[in-house]
C-alpha cells in the first residue's frame, strides 16, 4: 500500500513536470483568437471605479461610489443642470415659492411609474420624506440631518411639514427659510424611492430612473439595464451600464486601454499624457467643486497669532505645487470655496509667494527665528489632493527658508479625521468636495463657529463671519446673499485660518466611442444621454 501511494505521488509529480512545460504553449494557443470577446459593447457601458457601493438606498449613504449607481436608478424632485448646479425640473415639472420663502408647492410629472409598477405620486413623495425625517436614525440617514438641520422634532429642523394636496401636488412648509433648499432637494441622497419597497431598496433598489437594477456581485460589479418605460421619450440611449470595481488607479486605466471597460473615474493626473496620446481614448475633466487647503488650529500657539498664519500663507508656492503634483490639472485657490459657486469673491487678492513678506510678518509676531511645528499630511489620495505626502514635503522645504522646522506626521484616514475633529492637528492638510453647489455648504459647514467639533477643524470662531453666514442662510435674494458671502470671504482672507491651496479638476478616461457624457461637478451624473458608437 505504501508503495502504491508512493507511485501515485511520484507519477503526479512527473505529470506535473510535463504540464509545467506545456503551460507556456497552451497559454498562447487559448488566447490567440480571443480578441473578439471584449470589443463590441452592444450599447452596454462599463464604468470602472475604485470601490464598491455601500448600499443602493441613496438616503443612507454618503460615498460617491454608491451615489454614482443610485443616480441611474432613482430621480429627485428637481435636478441640477447637466453642466452646472442651476436647478431644473425633475420629477416635479414646476413649483411655486411663497413670498416669505416658507412654502414650496411642487407640481409633479404625471403618469410616472416606479420600476416595480407602482405609481409615482404626491403620496410617494410624502412617504419618502416622512421616512427620513421621522426615523431619527443617524446611522441610516446621514445626509438628511446635515442638509435639513436635523430630524423631525429637532429645534433646528428646516422642514415643518410635507403634505400631498392632491395626486400631483406636494406642499413643503418650512420652519425657517433655507436659501439652498431647492439645491438640497436635487442632491442624489434625496431621490424618491418606491414606498412599497423601503425595506429592501438597499439591496434591490426601485426608483423611477432611466435604468433599472439588475444584479450586484459584491466587491465586483453592479449591473443596471435600460428602463423601457422611462417617462422621458427616447431615453436612455444605452442598453445598460455595468459598474466594475478595480481598486488600483493604474490597473483601471490599463483596463480602459485594453477596452475591457469603457470609462473610468479617479485617473492619476500623472497618466494624463498617456491618455491624450492615445487616439482610441478621450480625457474627461470634471468641473471642479472642491478645495484642498492647509488649516491652522487657531487655538494653538503660535497659530493663534494672525501674523503667523499670514506669514505661512506667503510661503506656499501654489503654482509650483500644481505644476509638480497635479500635472496642471488644478487651479490655485484664494478663497475657501471654488469659483464655480455663486457668491465667490473674485476681488480678493491672494497672498503672493514672498519669503521677505513672510519674514516681516514673523518678526512682527515675535517669531523671527522661526519655530518647530507638526505638519499633518493627508494620508490618502483624495480628489482635491492626489498625493498629500509629497505636497507636504514641498511645503516643508519652503517653510525651512524662514526657520520654521516642520515635522511631517500622519495617521490612517479614520484616525486622521477623528483627531482633527478633536482639535489635535496644529497645522493640517484637508479638503472638501461640495455637496450641493452652494456657498453655505463651504463657508458655514467648514468655517462657522457652529461647526466647531464637526468640520471646522481650525476651530475658527469669528462673530462677524457667523452673523453674515447665518443671515445668508435665510436670505432668498441671490444678489443680497452673494454680498454677504463676499464680505465673509474678505474677513476670512484677512484672518487666514486656512491657506486655500487648490481647486483640482478630477480626471476621467474613456473610450473615444463615448458620446454625450458630461461629468458633473457634484461627482455623479446620469448616463441617460450617453451613447457608445
Amino acid at each position, binding site marked *: 500500500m505504501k508503495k502504491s*501511494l*508512493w507511485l501515485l*505521488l*511520484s507519477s503526479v*509529480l512527473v505529470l*506535473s*513536470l510535463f504540464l*509545467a512545460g506545456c503551460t507556456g504553449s497552451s*497559454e*498562447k494557443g487559448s*488566447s*490567440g483568437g*480571443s*480578441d473578439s*470577446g*471584449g470589443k*463590441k*459593447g452592444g450599447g452596454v457601458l462599463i464604468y470602472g471605479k475604485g*470601490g*464598491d457601493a*455601500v*448600499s443602493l438606498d441613496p438616503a443612507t449613504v*454618503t*460615498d460617491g461610489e454608491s451615489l454614482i449607481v443610485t443616480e441611474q436608478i432613482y430621480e429627485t424632485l428637481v435636478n441640477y443642470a447637466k453642466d452646472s448646479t442651476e436647478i431644473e425640473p425633475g420629477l416635479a415639472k414646476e413649483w411655486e415659492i411663497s413670498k416669505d420663502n416658507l412654502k414650496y408647492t411642487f407640481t409633479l410629472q404625471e403618469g410616472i411609474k416606479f420600476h416595480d409598477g407602482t405609481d409615482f405620486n404626491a403620496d410617494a413623495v410624502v412617504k419618502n420624506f416622512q421616512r427620513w425625517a421621522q426615523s431619527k*436614525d*443617524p*446611522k441610516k440617514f*446621514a*445626509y438628511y*440631518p*446635515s442638509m435639513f438641520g436635523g430630524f423631525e422634532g429637532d429645534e433646528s429642523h428646516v422642514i415643518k411639514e410635507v403634505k400631498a394636496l392632491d395626486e400631483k401636488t406636494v406642499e413643503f412648509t418650512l420652519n425657517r427659510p433655507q436659501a439652498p433648499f431647492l439645491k438640497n432637494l436635487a442632491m442624489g441622497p434625496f431621490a424618491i424611492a418606491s414606498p412599497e419597497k423601503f425595506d429592501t431598496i*438597499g*439591496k434591490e433598489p426601485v426608483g423611477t430612473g432611466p435604468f433599472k437594477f439588475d*444584479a450586484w*456581485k*459584491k*466587491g*465586483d460589479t453592479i449591473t443596471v439595464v435600460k428602463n423601457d418605460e422611462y417617462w422621458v421619450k427616447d431615453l436612455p440611449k444605452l442598453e445598460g451600464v*455595468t459598474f*466594475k470595481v478595480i*481598486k*488600483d488607479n493604474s*490597473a483601471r486605466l*490599463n*483596463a480602459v*486601454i*485594453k477596452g*475591457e*471597460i469603457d470609462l473610468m473615474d479617479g485617473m492619476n493626473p500623472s497618466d494624463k499624457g498617456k491618455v491624450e496620446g492615445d487616439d482610441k481614448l478621450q480625457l474627461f475633466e470634471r468641473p471642479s467643486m472642491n478645495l484642498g487647503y492647509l488649516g491652522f488650529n487657531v487655538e494653538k500657539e503660535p497659530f493663534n497669532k494672525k501674523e503667523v498664519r499670514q506669514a505661512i500663507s506667503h510661503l506656499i508656492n501654489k503654482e509650483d505645487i500644481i505644476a509638480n503634483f497635479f500635472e496642471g490639472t488644478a487651479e490655485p485657490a484664494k478663497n475657501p470655496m471654488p469659483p464655480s459657486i455663486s457668491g465667490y469673491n473674485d476681488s480678493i487678492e491672494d497672498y503672493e509667494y514672498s519669503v521677505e513678506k513672510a519674514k516681516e510678518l514673523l518678526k512682527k509676531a515675535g517669531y523671527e527665528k522661526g519655530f518647530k511645528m507638526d505638519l499633518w499630511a493627508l494620508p490618502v489620495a483624495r480628489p482635491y489632493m492626489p498625493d498629500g505626502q509629497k505636497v507636504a514635503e514641498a511645503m516643508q522645504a519652503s517653510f525651512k527658508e524662514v526657520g520654521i522646522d516642520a515635522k511631517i506626521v500622519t495617521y*490612517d*484616514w*479614520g*484616525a486622521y*479625521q*477623528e*483627531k482633527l*475633529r478633536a482639535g489635535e492637528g496644529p497645522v493640517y492638510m484637508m479638503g472638501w468636495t461640495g455637496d450641493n453647489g452652494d456657498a453655505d455648504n463651504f463657508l458655514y*459647514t467648514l468655517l462657522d463657529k457652529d461647526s466647531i*467639533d*464637526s468640520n471646522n477643524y481650525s476651530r475658527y470662531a469669528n462673530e462677524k463671519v457667523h452673523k453674515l453666514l447665518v443671515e445668508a442662510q435665510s436670505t432668498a435674494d441671490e444678489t443680497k446673499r452673494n454680498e454677504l458671502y463676499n464680505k465673509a470671504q474678505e474677513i476670512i482672507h484677512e484672518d487666514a485660518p486656512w491657506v486655500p491651496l487648490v481647486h483640482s479638476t478630477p480626471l476621467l478616461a474613456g473610450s473615444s466611442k463615448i458620446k454625450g457624457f458630461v461629468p458633473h461637478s457634484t461627482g455623479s451624473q446620469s448616463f441617460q444621454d450617453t451613447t457608445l458608437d
Partner: protein
Amino acid sequence: MFSYTIRRLGALIPVLLGMVFIVFIMIRAIPGDPAQLILGQQATKESIQALTSQLGLDKPWYTQFFEYLGGLFKGDLGVSIKTDVPISEEVWPYLTATIELSLVAMLFAIIVGVNAGIISAWFQNSWFDYIAMVVALIGVSMPVFWLGLMEQYVVSIQWDLLPTTGRDNIRDPVEAITGLYLIDTLMAGRVDQFIEVIKHLILPGFALGTIPMAIIARMTRSSMLEVMRSDFIRTARAKGMKMFWVVYKHSLKNALIPVVTVIGLQTGLLLGGAILTETIFGWPGIGTYIYEAIGSRDYPVIQSGILVIATIFVLINLVVDLLYAAIDPRIKYK
C-alpha cells in the same frame, strides 16, 4: 490517526478563541471611530454619539466581546456595521474568489517550484541551477504590485494576449452558483466562459504564485541536496538504478517533508495576503474585504473575516501534519 485528528480538531478551539480575543483587542486599540467613518465628514457630534450607542460601541469592551462570542457559538458571524448585511451572507463570494485564485497560484507555484528545485539539486552548480536560483531570488523579492502592473502592460496591452483585470468578461458575466467560477461555468455548460475564466486567472495567478514558487523551489533544492548526499542514494546509484528514478523516487520522497510544510504555510498565507494582487487585478477577494473593513473600522467584519481565514489556515496545517504520516511511514500519530 482518527483519534489524533479528533484531538487536533478539538485543540483548534482554544487557538481560534485566543485569536478572536487578540484581534478583538487590537482593532479597538487603533484610533478611529466607526461611527464617524460611517457618517462621513458631514456628521454632527450628536449623530455620532447616537450612532455609537446604537451600534453598542459605548458598552464596556468585555460586554461587547462576550456578546460577539455568544453569537459565534450560535454560528452567527455578526452583521457588517457598514453595509448592514449579515457577514455569513456577505463573506462567501469574497472567500470563493480568493480560494479560486489561491489554488491556481499554488498549483503553479508547486508545479514549477518543486520541479525547478529538484532539477537544480540534481544538476547542482550547472547553469540551470544558477539561473533557477537567481530567478528564485528575484521571485522572492519581487514587489507584487510592480509585477502585476508590468504583466498587464506587457502581456495584456503590448502583446494583447490576456485580459487585464477581473474574474470574467464583464460583457458576458458568469452566473455565480458555487462562487468558484471554474466550476460554475462547467455546471452551466459554458465552455467558452470556462476558457475565459482560465484566461482571467493566469496573470493574477502568476503574480500571486511567484513568491511561493520561489520559496518552494529553494526549499526543495536544499532539502534534496541534503538527501542526495545520504548513503542510501549512493547505494541506489551503485546498483545501477537510473538517475531519474533515484532523484524522483528515492530522494524526493525523503526530501518532501519540509517542502510540504512550506507549501502548507504558503497556501495559508495566500488566503489573507493576496490584497495587493486583488487590488491590481480588480479581484473581489477576502483580503480586500477585510482590508476595507479595517479602513472603515467595521469591527465585526474584521473579526469574523480574520476568523474565517484563521480557521482555514489551521485546517491546512492539520492536513499537512496528516500528510507527513502518509509520506513518511516512520511518522505515526497515536
